[in-house]
């Protein structure tokens, strides 16, 4: 843990003492960090009961979805029972279909769990990519200014005025209905809004004295952007990420519902609803189950995201 600088200046004995000192300090810091983290979580829970409730539900959903193959004996793409079998009826192999079967006899519970994987994957990946690209675009737009800023802002304008769902539909139609394309199609909608917010944040950073000092010291543009501006824009980026997850899940479901999302056999809550639409007179459960799954998940994500925003964005504290 001793620095090379320290080694040159001090004798061996001193170095050993110094190293021990640093080590104990690190240990102490580690313990302090654990205590601090625990305190932060406790404070967050106390201040945002609704947000923590959302977070807890989200955690349960993630665990359920990840252990899909342990929880259900069926495969999501095989017909295992009679068509539209009601809740709790028996499958052909004798196992119970907890939430009934869909219009071609596949187990609804299994499909809902696997559909949740799709939703959560898209819901996390799309905002990650969208916020990441928006962050880069916003910061470079603010940092370089001039023609670059002008051009980027016109591109951002055109991204902002086109209805998001329509753009996503065009993209999946042009590039295909794979998981990756759907993620990109949803991410691209986020870039415009994110880069606007980050740009205005970075404009203020750009004028700050430490950036001026860095420039005077001869730091390269890449260094200033990646080592200073991006880390300093982390809090707003985090907030933007948290509030985008719910929307991404909804957009994925909408795309699948319109038949322009991820192609079968991979289940998605949106496509389950879309298939169920024609049959719901004969079996309410096939609409209700994926519907409730979407509703509960997005609600939990939004409660958690809002609380995170309140906690991270001091300007909003005390409001709402």
């Amino acid at each position, binding site marked *: 843990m001793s620095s090379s600088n320290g080694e040159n200046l001090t004798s061996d004995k001193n170095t050993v003492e110094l190293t021990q000192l640093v080590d104990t300090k690190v240990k102490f810091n580690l313990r302090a960090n654990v205590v601090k983290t625990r305190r932060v979580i406790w404070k967050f829970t106390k201040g945002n009961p609704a947000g923590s409730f959302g977070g807890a539900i989200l955690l349960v959903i993630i665990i359920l979805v990840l252990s899909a193959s342990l929880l259900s004996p069926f495969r999501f793409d095989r017909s295992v029972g009679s068509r539209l079998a009601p809740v709790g009826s028996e499958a052909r192999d004798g196992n119970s279909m907890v939430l009934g079967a869909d219009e071609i006899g596949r187990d609804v519970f299994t499909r809902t769990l696997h559909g949740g994987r799709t939703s959560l994957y898209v819901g996390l990946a799309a905002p990650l990519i969208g916020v990441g690209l928006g962050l880069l675009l916003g910061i470079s737009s603010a940092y370089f200014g001039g023609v670059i800023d002008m051009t980027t802002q016109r591109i951002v304008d055109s991204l902002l005025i086109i209805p998001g769902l329509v753009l996503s539909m065009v993209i999946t139609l042009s590039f295909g209905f794979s998981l990756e394309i759907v993620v990109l199609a949803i991410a691209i909608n986020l870039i415009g809004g994110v880069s606007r917010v980050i740009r205005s944040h970075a404009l203020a950073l750009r004028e700050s004295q430490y950036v001026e000092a860095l420039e005077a010291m001869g730091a390269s543009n890449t260094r200033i952007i990646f080592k200073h501006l991006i880390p300093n824009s982390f809090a707003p980026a985090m907030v933007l990420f948290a509030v985008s997850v719910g929307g991404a899940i909804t957009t994925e*479901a909408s795309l699948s519902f*319109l038949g322009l999302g991820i192609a079968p056999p991979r289940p998605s809550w949106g496509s389950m*609803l879309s298939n169920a639409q024609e049959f719901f007179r004969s079996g309410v459960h096939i609409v209700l189950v994926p519907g409730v799954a979407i509703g509960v998940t997005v609600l939990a994500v939004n409660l958690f995201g809002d609380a995170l925003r309140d906690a991270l964005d001091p300007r909003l504290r005390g409001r709402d």
Partner: protein
Amino acid sequence: MQVYILRRLLLMIPTIFILGTSLFFLLRVLPGDLAVGLLTSEESSATAEEIEELREYLGLNDHILVQYGRWLKTIGRGDLGYSPLFDSSVVSILWSKLGITIELAIIAVIISLVWAIPLGIISALRRGSWIDQAIRVVTAAGISLPNFWIALMVLLILVAFFRWSPPVQYVHFLDNPIENLKMLFLPALVIGFRSAAVITRMTRSMMLEVIGQDYVRTARAKGLSSRTVTLRHALPNASLPILTLAALLLAALVDGAVIIEVIFNLPGLGQLIRESITRRDYELIQGIVLVLALFMMVWILITDLLYAWLDPRIRYS
């Protein structure tokens, strides 16, 4: 002011150009086009020669840059092109479908404003009470639940308990206003639900900020009734951000319309968007998106100007 408006209008040109061009090339990335879609989508399937003939006729065999040049020329004339799918000009198709969606959007905005603003005010004035809590739960749900889910649940309830089903044939407003409104009320309610929830939350937080200020206390001290204080003094000052938000929500309404019109079987712009995209009618898609984009930009400009008009402290130059 005139210079400002002119500059904003001029800035629309590059934006529209970028949007149109990227959309043009985006749509032509993958093989497979309208010629196949037109001839093979129904029960009959066409021979390769027939498809090739139609492709030649529609000009789809030309080099992509030639097609782009042709399209630019069309746009330059102020035209939006021709839709082989409907065998008519894009402008006339848009004209016939736009009415339904605009009517739907207007009803949605009216319904949502009518209940969102009063609820927001009540929620702010009775902060922390059970009614405030209830309103916050409903708005949280309104923001979270996807609108097509709400639409399906509404349909489910109506079908299961009232034996009602969505009408098959659309009735025009001028033919039968009452029947027409009955038809649009539910979809408008569903589309507006989310916007209403957002507006309620915004109204609440703006009102909370405003009613804590000195001038409101002064108005109270003067002996004004709490109704006058709220409606004449607090609300106008809280209304600016609400207005901006309501304007921006219009884009969300279009997204909502795409999916809600499909569920409720309304032959508006939303259905048209879905149909043109799935059938790959390029010029129609481009036309719709450009018109929507232009509409949005003009709309945002109008709200910006309205902002300055409502709040004299804001000046554009």
